[in-house]
């Protein structure tokens, strides 16, 4: 996307590792797929070096700008890993094939465990919603889920770690958070404003 693909080599074991890691993330994604973004970034960008920070951040930004559930950022993350492994779209069929493989591996990995669990647990939970352990779990994890969302915002912003140069981006994030928190403005206006400020070089 916004940066030249990394050149990486992915073995079969690497693809399997990617798949199982996303299966794990799926089961941890209480509060939505986006709450696993810090862990995903740690694994893909810091540990395995399969993705650049810029690719990771732009995957989330594009998915937010697009319609649909936020979980689709996972598809773009997979798309970018695939592009890096397949030499980019310039590599023709191989590039496309790897990119689509990346989408399939990450999306199926992300959706399969949580969807299966949801199907059975929602039925069970609906029947037993007054039980004390069910209520205790809901109450216990509530503050943690909220803190995970705040952590995601922090990790995305902290990727810009040159304060002297990146302060307008930090400011834009803080102002956006305050505006969305306190007003009912349509989110599309904010994304548009962010795009415009960025395109003009002001952020």
């Amino acid at each position: 996307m916004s940066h030249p693909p990394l050149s990486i080599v992915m073995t079969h074991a690497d693809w399997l590792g990617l798949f199982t890691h996303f299966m794990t993330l799926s089961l941890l994604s209480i509060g939505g797929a986006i709450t696993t973004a810090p862990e995903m970034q740690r694994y893909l960008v810091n540990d395995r070096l399969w993705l650049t920070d810029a690719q990771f951040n732009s995957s989330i930004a594009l998915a937010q700008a697009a319609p649909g559930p936020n979980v689709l950022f996972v598809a773009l993350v997979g798309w970018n890993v695939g592009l890096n492994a397949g030499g980019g779209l310039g590599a023709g069929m191989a590039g496309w094939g790897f990119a689509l493989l990346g989408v399939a591996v990450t999306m199926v990995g992300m959706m399969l465990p949580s969807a299966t669990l949801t199907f059975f647990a929602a039925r069970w939970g609906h029947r037993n919603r007054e039980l004390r352990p069910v209520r205790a779990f809901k109450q216990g994890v509530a503050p943690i889920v909220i803190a995970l969302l705040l952590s995601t915002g922090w990790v995305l912003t902290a990727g810009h770690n040159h304060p002297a140069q990146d302060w307008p981006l930090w400011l834009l994030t803080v102002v956006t958070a305050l505006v969305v928190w306190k007003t009912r403005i349509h989110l599309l206006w904010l994304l548009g404003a962010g795009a415009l400020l960025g395109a003009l070089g002001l952020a």
Partner: protein
Amino acid sequence: MSFLPAQKHPQPQSLSDLFMSFTLLALQGFGGVLAVVQRELVEKKQWLTREEFVDDWAVAQILPGPNVVNLSMMIGDRYFGLRGALVALAGMLTLPLLVVLAMALLFAGIADVPAAQGALRGMGAVAAGLITATGLKLIGALHTNVMGARICWALAAITFIAIALLRIRLLWVLLVLGGLASMWAYRQLGALRAVGASQ
């Protein structure tokens, strides 16, 4: 309340109605679908009452997975069983996935233009703000938490430090903190019940 038998509220007519409804719903949701779900399913289609929506939303939020996708699966399951859940899931993801990939492709074509890179950087900063604001909005829900405000704040602060600053693995944070918090909440719920019984 009426003494008539509970009136059946409107419901999806068929699997294709379910698929189309969730597809259209997902395509309207920029920067998150929750607000659209409430407006479409509760106010317009009336497949759910407001009370049913709140109840289902709590469960959808507690379970892992994208909340709105979880909610759509629960609704699909209620009317058409497993097939309904799968169709709802497909409706929420298929077309939006194609749209987002098309956007990535379009963007790749102009990715070398500095203005395009700047635009995406700006949108990324806004996206970080949107996610932060979602967290801030939900803080209000903690006021009624059985663990009390101080414990909630402490849990949230420890989670933030562990995940955002120390970059500890999510699995350990959820197992250790989530486990301790749930046990504490269980105890508090018991104490609450004891107080209720003694009054």
